[in-house]
């Protein structure tokens, strides 16, 4: 009888320890993650009367090579325009960057298991997720490429359009010919495998 009790106790303790171990390691185990904090995002508005472009080199991108989870976040104020007035209007009137400081894409890289991270190859990939911008979250599917190189780099490129109305970004009537209804977004991110310092 005592033997069975001890056995139960040992099994329960073992399970408890396994849970403790799993949760204590959840945060710190990033060995399957790839990241960059200097991803480049370009946006281009091609309207009848004007073409507007802006670039940010401060996009943070992290993905897991095992689960395929991917997060891209970008401070809105990091977009640089050629003209100061355009940058001010972009932040204050359209994106309201004081209220909504970041845009974030959170999703999953589909079929990540087909990518060989040890071989120099370029893969066509797609991501399914949600883009949150200007306080609005919408589903988004993005197609792009991942180029793996031997020196533990993963170059991610993609290009997609976002419709301003979907994110409640209003174009004043006077600006309809100057700001396009759909904005083209290009992402270029050279990710490295995470290594602890």
């Amino acid at each position, binding site marked *: 009888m005592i033997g069975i009790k001890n056995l139960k106790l040992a099994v329960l303790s073992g399970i408890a320890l396994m849970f403790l171990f799993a949760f204590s390691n959840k945060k710190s185990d990033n060995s399957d993650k790839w990241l960059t904090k200097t991803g*480049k995002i370009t946006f281009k508005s091609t309207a009848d009367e004007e073409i507007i472009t802006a670039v940010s080199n401060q996009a943070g991108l992290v993905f897991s090579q095992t689960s395929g989870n991917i997060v891209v976040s970008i401070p809105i104020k990091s977009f640089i325009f050629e003209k100061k007035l355009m940058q001010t209007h972009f932040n204050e009137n359209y994106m309201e960057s004081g209220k909504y400081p970041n845009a974030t894409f959170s999703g999953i890289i589909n079929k990540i298991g087909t990518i060989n991270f040890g071989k120099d190859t370029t893969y066509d990939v797609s991501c399914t997720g949600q883009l949150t911008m200007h306080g609005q979250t919408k589903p988004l599917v993005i197609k792009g490429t991942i180029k793996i190189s031997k020196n533990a780099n993963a170059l991610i490129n993609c290009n997609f359009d976002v419709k301003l109305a979907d994110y409640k970004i209003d174009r004043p009537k006077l600006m309809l010919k100057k700001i396009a209804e759909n904005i083209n977004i290009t992402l270029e991110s050279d990710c490295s495998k995470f290594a602890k310092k």
Partner: protein
Amino acid sequence: MKKFFTFLFIAALGAGGFAYYFYQQKTEKTTTDKSIAVFTSKDLLTEFNANEAGANKKYGDQTITLEGTVFNTTVSDNNILIELEGNDALESVICNFDITSLPIEKIPKIGESIKIKGKFIAFTIEPLMETKTISMVQCLII
């Protein structure tokens, strides 16, 4: 009457010129504002970790001076990104320099200690790894 129309014409011309000047004004490459505080990159991250809302309010769009160790450098078109070390491998400060204010040959080496002045724009915690990043723009080495 003629004088009035002449005045109106000159005023309209002046207003138009003024509007055109503002419309054509280029975005600043470096901040010209006076620095409101001096920190190490690690101390600034510590302050944001302790009170993000308070620090955002205090330093949002302000020019600050930072001292730190270079962890990474990236050249991207006309911009140079210098990453300063944080308190651990997940934390850092990204400083954006226009190439006209930091020529490629003068980019500091990894491990070098530098002092920069720039405009704080954001503190971001990315949810997948919980990396923490402070973003600075219009930077210059001082």
